[in-house]
């Protein structure tokens, strides 16, 4: 329960590390990215990563169709293009660790191990959904997986993550809380307050900033005077790196190192994952604020294609294996959709259930008509 700050690592980013991770320097080798496992195991490991990313992508592609078919409603934010981040980071976590995230969290939920069924049913608004239909796309929760939800207030999840980590710190648990948020959140006051608190209290917290260069239609350089987010984060006195978020192996490696440091008393760590969303901000967004060519440039570095190409080059992936993988994914998703379609609705009488843990002793709404 004591807080020794002496153990805190202080690997601040230097201008050296700043350029070494720049997107232009993509040839930088990440062969040592996977937990060192030679031959067959390394191949299997990569296949797992590939499968996870393809599953997330395919799941969301189906979500788009289902949104058009009005099966899914409300706000829906797609992760397409950013899959390497969720997949790479989640690999670094154990089941005991905690996750806090945003409204753009399908990928995180899937990569954390939530079932396609529970997520799809949630987006269908069914009682069989992970949040009994109350949350929808933006509010996926799973207590069993310590998945503390999608939060739809930008920056709103960070204080929760500080508190989860604080509880672990006070109890002496060697657990990590991973907190995902976007580049847009960096401008919010809560970002500042939380980075300081985490560093001041040396909390076991992994900040995961998904820098996809836009907050809705606002480009990072029109939101931040200093656009190097990892550098900014380091000014709070915590360890911070920028990582190529389009390279799942690089993400995995960085996350594994950071998570282990966090777990064993190294204090909070900050990862800036440089990535890109291919789709509009949400299904409501006409995407008028950026160049189509820019999107294409990023697609050329697609994390899924990149990994697949590398595996092929190294003889770790065949067309057949890929087809089989995709078939299996398609089947899983089909089953999830079927189950969602068949899912029951929460009875309307249960509307006010879960406003309080127990039925309140007196109905707070209890105006009787005379």
């Amino acid at each position, binding site marked *: 329960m004591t807080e020794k700050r002496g153990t805190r690592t202080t690997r601040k980013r230097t201008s050296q590390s700043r350029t070494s991770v720049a997107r232009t320097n993509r040839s930088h080798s990440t062969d040592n990215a996977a937990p060192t496992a030679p031959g067959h195991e390394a191949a299997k490991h990569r296949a797992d990563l590939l499968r996870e990313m393809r599953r997330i992508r395919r799941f969301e592609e189906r979500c788009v169709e289902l949104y058009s078919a009005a099966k899914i409603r409300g706000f829906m934010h797609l992760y397409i293009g950013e899959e390497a981040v969720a997949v790479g980071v989640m690999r670094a976590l154990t089941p005991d660790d905690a996750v806090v995230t945003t409204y753009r969290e399908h990928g995180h939920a899937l990569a954390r191990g939530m079932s396609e069924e529970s997520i799809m049913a949630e987006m269908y608004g069914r009682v069989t959904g992970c949040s009994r239909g109350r949350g929808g796309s933006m509010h996926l929760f799973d207590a069993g997986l310590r998945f503390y939800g999608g939060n739809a207030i930008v920056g709103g999840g960070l204080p929760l993550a500080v508190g989860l980590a604080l509880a672990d710190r006070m109890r002496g648990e060697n657990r990590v809380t991973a907190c995902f948020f976007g580049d847009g959140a960096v401008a919010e006051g809560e970002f500042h307050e939380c980075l300081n608190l985490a560093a001041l209290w040396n909390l076991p917290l992994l900040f995961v900033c998904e820098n996809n260069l836009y907050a809705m239609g606002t480009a990072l350089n029109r939101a931040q005077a200093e656009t190097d987010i990892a550098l900014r984060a380091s000014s709070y006195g915590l360890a911070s790196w920028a990582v190529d978020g389009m390279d799942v192996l690089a993400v995995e490696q960085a996350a594994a190192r950071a998570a282990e440091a966090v777990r064993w008393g190294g204090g909070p760590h900050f990862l800036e994952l440089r990535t890109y969303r291919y789709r509009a901000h949400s299904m409501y967004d006409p995407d008028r604020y950026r160049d189509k060519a820019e999107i294409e440039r990023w697609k050329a570095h697609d994390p899924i294609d990149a990994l697949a190409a590398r595996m092929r080059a190294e003889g770790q992936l065949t067309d057949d294996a890929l087809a089989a993988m995709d078939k299996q994914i398609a089947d899983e998703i089909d089953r999830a959709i079927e189950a969602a379609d068949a899912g029951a609705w929460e009875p309307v009488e249960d509307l006010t259930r879960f406003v309080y843990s127990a039925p309140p002793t007196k109905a*707070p709404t209890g105006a009787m008509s005379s």
Partner: protein
Amino acid sequence: MTTAVKGEQISYREAVREAIRDAMRRDDRVFLMGEDVGRYGGCFAVSLGLLEEFGPDRIRDTPLSESAFVGAGIGAALAGMRPIVEIMTVNFSLLALDQILNNAATILHMSGGQFNVPLVIRMTTGAGRQLAAQHSHSLEGWYAHIPGLRILAPATLEDARGMLWPALEDPDPVLIFEHGSLYNLSGELDSTGPVDIDHAAVRRPGRDVTLLAYGGMLHKTLAAAEQLSEAGVEAEVIDLRTLRPLDDETITGSVRRTHRAVVVDEAWRSGGISAEVSARITEQAFYDLDAPVERVCGAEVPTPYAKHLEEAALPQPADIVAAACRAVDSDA
């Protein structure tokens, strides 16, 4: 000078846009500031095209820093500008509430009258689009609690078009709440001129019961009044329009005639503005009342995503009809 012409078809969204455009043309102290008002064209496309006309200085995109840019609006107003600050939705306005309460609403009095704050803050409010618990609040009642502010809730095209200019002319801070479900409302604009921002409006005359609503609820209330009419009950529908200061005369005047009142509010019942309206009616027209003032409000629950649950959580015309019937029947 205005581009929208009387009689043309126009949407609520366009009406707000025209109001902004008009104000920006008339007065170069006016500027619009908020998240994604520029390049994106406004979260609800309200400000689409304005960046091209007025440039990035006056259609000013901000980072996600609600407290800072709302406070900056207050500061700019103190310095004599006429800022229109857009907070994307009321849900995020909590992050700026300290600035609104402790600075915008307070500085005039606290400085002994030296500094006024001619600021307009616009924001979207309300539920109904399956946006779930964190994106469906109706918190305008909280703002209506704050001395020093004026609170407006345009429910019609004319008000969407006409409230902004008088709000900008007000020397003190004015908050305008636009219900998210209204942006696609469209029709002919009766007038493009400024409207009165002091009074409630009778949107439908009637003699049997007074239904009081505002913003998004006005249209459900009018629908309920139609249904009631078919059942032989003639409801008078009052659009509150200005939530602070409330127009006691119009409200009480109507209730004195109908002897019954139903307050309709999408917000949670306990402590909502519906309570204030109800309490005032009782205070001011107790002896004229033939039945207790009814309230039809949002269920006291974080708004759920699922459509059937959300619908159950929000006041529906049937609920209004039922309440009106209770009021009328209770004629003891």
